[in-house]
């Protein structure tokens, strides 16, 4: 066998590959079908959002940060608003907190449904994609009800929400929440015990919990590897400490366990949504009562001089935020989202930085795939659930 060629081959995967979830480029070095090394290249979707944020007023930043991680836009805006409200020292009324919890969990469901659909499709179960996108369509319609926008509603604002929930919203959400568990059963019937799925995912892309800590991986990836760290439990925000839910864990840290964790998380999200729905009174506050931040109601604007002036000031100059910095983490669908916000005391942010869980996952990609087969690369990328908009920002 001395004359068999043993040199490795370099293969370029992406940035236009359909399984790289956007524009992730991987330079793979292969020995036969075994991956010897991988060098990920990112930045194709870098649009300088953090620089743009510094030119905008505080409230104008929200549509920008929503476009970072475009599968979980309202996790981004929630992280940003919580940080700014921390500097402002604002406390939200209970109804606003419950609505935010509801929106955050619906957003997690929406993101996990896309993850499930694309992950299943990439491994060969195209039906999964069609089914999951059917349910996600309902969620997008719900978001459209809220903000008039399907993807980026900009509904969560600094100081509360944009406006009250529309008539019929609670009923529509309830209908969806009643429908989803049965549909999740349907997905699981298709996939969870499917022998092809088990062969493709079990023991593939294994990572240990200690490595997760060192590489900055949180969320479903770390919990599938035996961790129990969930920001909603460890550092509760918007009243998550008052909700009953389980932090889902698994122990093997492979692609299959990450699948199981995310599927179970969706059921937990449904539980949280139902609890939040029960707390949302039909009428009540949809923003805090801080006159500096929240525009006065329209009937006052039309009848009172002070309200008109305040309305004009908020919409022309914006509000100022005291000098300081804050970082409030939230549990996004992909792990710890968080926005590090620095204010210099003016009406524009001095610095906005979003911690991206996807960036960490891309960075640690070699921990998952080196030594595995090239076909497993697809399964691993799908199970990490990277969103390049959030990675590149």
């Amino acid at each position, binding site marked *: 066998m001395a004359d068999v060629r043993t040199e490795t081959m370099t293969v370029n995967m992406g940035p236009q590959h359909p399984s790289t979830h956007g524009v992730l480029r991987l330079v793979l070095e292969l020995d036969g079908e075994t991956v010897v090394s991988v060098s990920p290249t990112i930045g194709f979707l870098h649009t300088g959002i953090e620089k743009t944020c510094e030119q905008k007023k505080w409230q104008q930043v929200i549509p920008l940060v929503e476009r970072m991680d475009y599968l979980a836009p309202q996790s981004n805006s929630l992280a940003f608003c919580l940080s700014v409200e921390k500097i402002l020292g604002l406390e939200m009324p209970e109804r606003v907190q419950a609505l935010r919890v509801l929106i955050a969990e619906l957003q997690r469901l929406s993101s996990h449904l896309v993850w499930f659909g694309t992950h299943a499709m990439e491994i060969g179960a195209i039906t999964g994609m069609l089914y999951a996108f059917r349910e996600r369509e309902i969620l997008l319609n719900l978001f459209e009800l809220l903000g008039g926008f399907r993807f980026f509603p900009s509904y969560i604002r600094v100081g509360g929400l944009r406006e009250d929930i529309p008539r019929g919203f609670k009923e529509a959400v309830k209908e969806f929440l009643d429908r989803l568990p049965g549909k999740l059963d349907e997905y699981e019937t298709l996939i969870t015990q499917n022998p092809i799925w088990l062969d493709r995912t079990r023991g593939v892309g294994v990572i240990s919990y200690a490595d997760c800590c060192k590489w900055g991986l949180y969320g479903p990836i770390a919990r599938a590897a035996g961790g129990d760290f969930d920001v909603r439990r460890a550092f509760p925000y918007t009243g998550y400490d008052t909700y009953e839910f389980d932090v889902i864990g698994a122990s093997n840290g492979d692609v299959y366990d990450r699948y199981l964790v995310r599927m179970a998380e969706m059921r937990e999200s449904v539980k949280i949504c139902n609890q939040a729905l029960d707390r949302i009174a039909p009428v009540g506050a949809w923003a805090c009562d801080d006159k500096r931040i929240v525009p006065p109601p329209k009937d006052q604007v039309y009848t009172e001089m002070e309200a008109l002036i305040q309305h004009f000031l908020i919409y022309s100059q914006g509000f100022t935020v005291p000098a300081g*910095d804050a970082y409030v*983490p939230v549990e996004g669908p992909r792990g710890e989202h968080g926005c590090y916000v620095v204010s210099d005391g003016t009406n524009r942010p001095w610095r906005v930085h979003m911690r991206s869980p996807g960036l960490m996952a891309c960075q640690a990609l070699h921990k998952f795939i080196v030594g595995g087969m090239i076909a497993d690369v697809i399964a691993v990328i799908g199970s990490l659930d990277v969103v390049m908009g959030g990675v590149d920002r």
Partner: protein
Amino acid sequence: MTAADIIAALAPAVPGAAYEPLASADSDVTPVILVPAEHLIATCQALQGPGLEYVAFSDVTAVDFHPARDPRFDVVYHLVSPHRRARVRLKVRVNADVEVPSLTPVFPGAGWPEREVYDLFGIVFDGHQDLRRLMMPDDWEGHPLRKDYPVQLRKDAQTYMPLQVTEEEFRANVERDRHVRTTPKP
């Protein structure tokens, strides 16, 4: 655990380091400590010790305070203790001519965030194995998140084909098109 408690716990492990607790809006959850650059690595190692257990890496970023402050940069580190459910924020104040020790020997996950900070702020990390630009193209000039970097800098795109028409031809095309569009149909 407040910043003062953490500093007291760190003091025996890192002799000679002059820490300073800093105020911040979220210091109830995340105590903030100013760390001298030369003691950063030892501090992060000591923070993993018993009683502190900040074993999980969260983030590295930077803030530019130009021109109001000298040294102009804050390099900001977030560490987490999943076990104790605690966080800490470390800040290192430097100028662009000072190299910050890279955190990669302690937390390999700091590699890409440090590359991002190098790319967008121009802060060099000493001991980083692969300090290249991360977001911007390799041939980019300047560091966009610096405050003295102009926002609307016009720069010829180098990655794409040049325009096939001159400016005069382009304007003539627009004018001709406008004529067609504004001429009423007979």
